[in-house]
């Protein structure tokens, strides 16, 4: 309660500053109540490719736990949406996904801003996901009915749930699922579609100013790029234009965790602020107010980065507290730390507003991941090491460990 009051101070200051900026701006932009934009009576909003990829990722994550039916070939086909030899594949249950020409892998670590001239790292990250997928089949599946212990993959109880871990205690399905939040969703959103290099590519500005539409479409290229960013957050919402009522329930990726962080009193309002920034930025594009557009992009970058960082700290602290119990529930701890691993991994795709870089560099992240994996991995990890990681992360943000952990 007291913290909230103290937080008000910078917020108020911020509000005053942003009011000043508003006065300098001549354009008044009215954002609509929902994410609905039209031209000649027809919607101009489109992000089907993003919806498709979220759905593909959901099927992949469930299939990683389908011991009876999944094979390495099937899972890799789901990741690539093509066969090993590059042919057409139909790995999905949802026939629409099999028809789609999109795939997950192509958009992993693939943003223009971070990776267009860093293809070596991009390839490493893309392959890391394949390595986790293959290891699930090679290491965990054969040990479905073995009790896990240090150095031995198998199953372990987490309360009344059963978790399936590798020899170091990690759940590969969590590594893949939580790492995709950064490597696919956040990277595409923050470092690709919201970048001026993408929004203003080619003749986008001129076309947008003149109302020149993309070929065969009812939108300008710039409008579409902005929508694609929106789609990685709200692309599977029950009501695509009005996603707030079902926030957190529409996927197991960014939408879910924006909902989780918004549900923490210390961060309440972050979801509405993000949604509002998307609406206002889109309205600004229609109005040709590119400064306003870019201000909204910075808000989104900051908020999405905060979501990833808060969840990383949250799970690190849950794991730490669990290990400090007199008789630790290792299954629960390993589950938390497997999620923490994925959110840590995702942090390298965050973006400090107004800068060129993530909140923590790939080198820093890799250093922390190596600590988690050292020796027998989670079977050996010291609570103090987890606490240090939380501190390292929180130091880059304006929240405290306590705010993130509760």
């Amino acid at each position: 309660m007291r913290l909230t009051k103290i937080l008000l101070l910078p917020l108020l200051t911020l509000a005053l500053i942003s009011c000043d900026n508003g006065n300098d701006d001549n354009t008044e932009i009215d954002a609509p109540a929902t994410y609905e934009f039209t031209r000649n009576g027809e919607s101009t909003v489109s992000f089907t490719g993003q919806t498709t990829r979220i759905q593909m990722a959901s099927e992949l994550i469930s299939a990683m736990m389908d011991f009876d039916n999944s094979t390495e070939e099937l899972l890799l086909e789901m990741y690539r949406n093509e066969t090993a030899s590059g042919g057409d594949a139909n790995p999905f249950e949802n026939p629409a996904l099999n028809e789609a020409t999109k795939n997950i892998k192509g958009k992993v670590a693939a943003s223009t801003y971070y990776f267009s001239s860093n293809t070596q790292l991009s390839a490493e990250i893309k392959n890391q996901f394949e390595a986790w997928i293959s290891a699930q089949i090679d290491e965990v599946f054969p040990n479905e009915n073995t009790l896990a212990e240090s150095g031995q993959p198998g199953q372990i109880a987490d309360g009344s749930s059963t978790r399936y871990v590798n020899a170091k205690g990690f759940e590969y399905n969590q590594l893949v699922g939580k790492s995709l939040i950064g490597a696919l969703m956040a990277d595409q959103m923050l470092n690709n579609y919201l970048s001026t290099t993408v929004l203003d590519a080619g003749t986008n500005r001129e076309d947008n100013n003149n109302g020149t539409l993309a070929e065969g479409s009812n939108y300008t290229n710039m409008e579409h790029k902005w929508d694609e960013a929106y789609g990685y957050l709200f692309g599977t919402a029950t009501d695509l234009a009005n996603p707030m009522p079902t926030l957190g329930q529409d996927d197991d990726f960014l939408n879910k965790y924006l909902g989780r962080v918004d549900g923490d009193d210390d961060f309440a309002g972050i979801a509405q602020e993000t949604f509002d920034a998307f609406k206002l930025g889109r309205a600004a594009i229609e109005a040709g107010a590119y400064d306003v557009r870019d201000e909204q992009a910075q808000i989104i970058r900051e908020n999405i980065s905060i979501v990833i960082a808060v969840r990383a700290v949250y799970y690190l602290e849950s794991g730490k507290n669990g290990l400090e119990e007199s008789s630790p529930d290792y299954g629960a701890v390993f589950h938390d730390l497997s999620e923490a691993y994925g959110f840590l991994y995702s942090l390298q795709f965050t973006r400090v507003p107004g800068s060129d870089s993530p909140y923590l560099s790939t080198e820093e992240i890799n250093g922390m991941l190596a600590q988690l994996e050292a020796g027998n991995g989670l079977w050996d990890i010291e609570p103090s090491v987890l606490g240090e990681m939380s501190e390292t992360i929180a130091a880059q943000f304006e929240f405290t460990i306590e705010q993130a952990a509760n």
Partner: protein
Amino acid sequence: MKKFVVLIVTVFIVWSCTDNGPSGPSPDDFDREAILVNWADNIIIPAFTHFSETTAQLHTSAQNFSAEHTQQNLDVLRDSWKSAYLAYQHVSMFEMGEAMQLRYRDNLNIYPTDTSEIEDNIAEGNYNLELPSLNNSQGFPALDYLLYGLGENDSEIMANYTSNSGAENYRTYLTDLTQRIDDLTTQVLESWTSGYRDEFVSNSGNGSNSSLDMMVNDYIYYYEKHLRAGKIGIPAGVFSGTPLSSHVEAYYSQGFSKALFNQALTASINFFNGTHFEAEVDGQSLDDYLDYLNTMKDGADLTSLINNQFQEARTEAENLNADFAAQVENDNSQMLSTYDELQRNVVYMKVDMLQALNINVDYVDADGD
């Protein structure tokens, strides 16, 4: 503007610091060890001792039935199962020490049981009952299915153990389950009688790792999750929105769920009041601790409020069908009103009692992912 905000913040901080401290007796002065001794020596160890006798009898009855598979031996086995299941209601809340390590309750009483997994285990043979993934195909609920759920009538059920192909596998699975219940129970009881009792009693301070804090948390957790939710709320659809009659305890025996509930409620009342196991002797417990602190809520004595509320729940439940599944299907509103009465005591105990005793809740609802 900034100064004004700082002023507000300062005022707020000062205001929140001048909390009206409670007057009267302090929780620190109470003899907590007397409660721990009463719980261990007059409730927990006698209840586990009695329960282990019934699990030994259950295993013996299963072995007899397996050796000589007659209807009469099936009836005896069913009686042994009922006696043991009732006795279990008096130990289920004590998930601490060895029981916590073993995840005792998850091994003995997860329902609904997974009947297809049970059938797979029986057909394939090489199962490892220690695997967490097999928790829901063993224990009392699995026995409920094996003793009552394998056919429409007794002769169909008997056929699975006698004439059908694979009958031997059924008999083996049955005795493997009763053996495991008995073994786990022996382990927990022996831990209490060979050292853990003294450790438990001597850890009589306050703070989150003290025996009293942990036991009270385990007790309220049990009351909230296993009694209120598991036995009543979940089958009544409180959490799902849709009633789930097949989620009642002892579903296949059709008519035993209410008896189990009543036993569990009695055990909960006795624990709160320190009533000795199977003896009408009143010992030290939470009621005495609250009385010592003169704990009042809205002008009423909290101990009386809690005990009256237990009786309200008991009275409401008297109207229920002996088979909760039938009750859910025929008139679920009675289940819901029983749930409401049970829920009122969650508030009295988890909020008011814990506040008075200065105990923090050490569990939260799972993240769910």
